[in-house]
């Protein structure tokens, strides 16, 4: 067995760093295959979430809106029930 010299420790450290870099690179380059444009777009859509800020902003805007004469949900469900 070879003695544990500073040079050997450095080589070992470099090998570990190289392995980590390769692993990181492989993760970023995972191959995907889509049978159609629609499938690709659906995948893209699933990865794209609306920013949470929209919901917060909307809550604020709705509070400032004049209330509908009757709850729009009540009207919606009434129409749907017809």
């Amino acid at each position, binding site marked *: 067995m070879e003695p544990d010299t500073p040079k050997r420790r450095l080589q070992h450290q470099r090998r570990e760093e190289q392995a980590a870099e390769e692993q990181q690179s492989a993760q*970023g380059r995972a191959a995907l295959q889509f049978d159609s*444009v629609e499938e690709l777009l659906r995948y*893209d859509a699933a990865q794209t*979430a*609306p920013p949470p800020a*929209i919901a917060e902003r909307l809550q604020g805007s709705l509070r400032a809106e004049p209330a509908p004469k009757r709850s729009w949900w009540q009207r919606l469900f009434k129409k749907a029930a017809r």
Partner: protein
Amino acid sequence: MHSPVVSDEPVRAAGTDSLQAEPAESGKWQALYEQHSRYVYYLALRMVGDAALAEDITHDVFLKAYAGLDRFRGQASLRTWLYRITINHCHNVQRAWQRRNIITTGDAQTWDTVAANTDSPLRVLEIKELGQRIQRTLDALPDEYKLLLLLVADENLSYQEVASLTEQSADAVRGKLHRARRAFAVEFQKQG
């Protein structure tokens, strides 16, 4: 693939617009937003190609939906109605932008002459920048093709609903869709 329907009646299948369900009042708005906001935001994002603008559009669409329920006659699904508001809003934003900038979008005739094998699968190696690549690809297509592809990608919409949203017949949608897919495939490979 979608199965074409002849009626414009609302789609109320389980998991889509379950209008019969009536949770607590405050929860209804949240449920509507959670069910549809992802689709509205994605359509807006890919139509205008700008995250901040898409955020504004999504906000405005739901605000308009809240204020304009009187115009929702239940003849279409809630998703279709929200998409119609989104498309109109995106067109307004795009028109305002085009007035200030010179734009060069591809026209359909150019793409019609391009040969491509649309049966080949689309292969993606670099996932990290996939969204940007898709955006660049869509931006290179005529607006009509872009919108058709984005709408047809939503499995909740029938060809009839896509036809209604794009103001043409379902047969015209099928014909143009074939060309739109081909154009996308060619451009997507170029952008890779």
